[in-house]
């Protein structure tokens, strides 16, 4: 059974159809990179998987369970699927460690003291040990984004979604965030990334999907996609970015 199966999903905002019957299957431990021009539906796809955007048609299956049923409680699903955004979205009124502890405290009903050791470990692992008590506005973009990743990881998700997590960063800060993603891949985390980092996609992805106007027009191993794209749209897109 596939970890995640997306079947023919459709999503419109008003008159604009952003996802036009998109299919995607993700296996346990896979890292999938979604690439494509802005507005091709990458973000909407990720937000749909996390149930932040209700889909209009189609189905999403997580471990064989349909999670896209209308009226289903989204909270347990979201606890299994972490998402990190382009703009970090840390809570500005809380320190880094409070940001990370909020969800486990409220959802798993654990005390700060009980959580502290494992949270400290996470911060240490991603080079943030001395930044735990800093507030978001005291951190660099790269640090904020790493805290945002730690915040999602603290819920021990089974799948992580990354929505252009390096796009808002200064070039010299991109590497530290990509390193985090490599670490997660080494741990066999199932990940879906929307990204403009073609070099990273080529090096790290198990599979690359090219989105165009709400559909996956081509998918495959990165070396095939990047060196020998078949679809004319893929060729045009890759030519424009490489």
């Amino acid at each position, binding site marked *: 059974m596939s970890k995640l199966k997306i079947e023919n999903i459709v999503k419109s905002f008003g008159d604009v159809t952003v996802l036009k019957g998109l299919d995607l299957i993700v296996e346990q431990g896979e890292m999938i990179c979604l690439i494509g021009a802005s507005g091709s539906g990458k973000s909407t796809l990720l937000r749909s998987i996390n149930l932040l955007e209700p889909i209009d048609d189609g189905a999403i299956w997580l471990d064989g369970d349909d999670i896209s049923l209308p009226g289903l409680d989204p909270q347990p699903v*979201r606890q299994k699927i972490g998402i990190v*955004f382009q703009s970090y*979205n840390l*809570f500005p*009124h809380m320190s880094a460690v409070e940001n990370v502890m909020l*969800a486990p405290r*409220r*959802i798993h009903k654990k005390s700060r003291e009980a959580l502290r050791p494992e949270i400290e470990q996470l911060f240490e692992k991603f080079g943030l040990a001395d930044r735990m008590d800093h507030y978001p506005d005291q951190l660099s973009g790269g640090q904020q984004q790493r805290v945002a990743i730690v915040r999602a990881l603290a819920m021990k998700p089974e799948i992580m979604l990354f929505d252009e997590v390096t796009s808002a960063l200064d070039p010299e800060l991109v590497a530290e965030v990509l390193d985090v993603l490599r670490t997660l891949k080494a741990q066999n985390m199932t990940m879906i990334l929307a990204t403009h980092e073609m070099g990273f996609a080529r090096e790290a992805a198990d599979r690359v999907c090219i989105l165009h106007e709400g559909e996956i027009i081509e998918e495959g191993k990165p070396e095939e996609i990047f060196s020998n794209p078949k679809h004319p749209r893929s060729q045009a897109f890759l030519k424009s970015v490489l």
Partner: protein
Amino acid sequence: MIAGVSTFIVLALIVILVPMAPGWEAVQKSFFNKEVFLKTFPKLLSAFWLDVLIFLWCAPLIAILGLAIALCRDVQSPVLFPLRIFGAVYTDIFRGVPVVLTVYLIGFGIPGLGLPRPYNSPYIWGSVALVLTYSAYVAEIFRSGIESVHKSQRAAASSLGLSNSDVMRYVVLPQAIRRVVPANMNMLIALQKDVALLSFIGPVEIFRQAGVFKSLLANFTPYVGAAVIFLAVTIPATRFADYLLAKQNRERS
């Protein structure tokens, strides 16, 4: 420097010109009578204590009710849609009616139902009128604060699996409430003044006490005394609110 000179000239003109008005002597005698002022001021001050008390018990109730109404207007669930309507109607009504009218209607109307003592007290129903009116305004302030928190904050919190109420309580409200502190300070200042409206339905607070002295002494100076007392409270409070606002603007830029 120029501002200083200009201010000085304007002040000098007022000091010189106003006493040249034909009615100045009469006005001075009935509004700025030193003897009357000194005689009535201590009594006014103690009457003002009642205003302070009314203010002190109204303010927290207003904050609680205002927040509750604001939350009513924000509920997302379709099942709870009637709450949204209730919140909207409530704020429309109580912001639409002059405060003094609400004070009259509730202050005279509800005890008129024949409630036993002490439940017919104008203190209670006058305060209720103030709480109802002011919580409508404060609800709108809280609502604007809630809406000013970017929706990406809610999305980030929900995406972690937090419930809607936890998202509101831990992520949205702490940010929203901080942002509207200056606006709510201004509401507190307005409330402190509007407590005087309760004089119309009975309580002998400062405004009514000043009225009593006016009738007794046939002199308007007690009103000036009352104004001085109000200013002594509201001016520092206004400055403090402005300071908070300026500080917030600096932090945001």
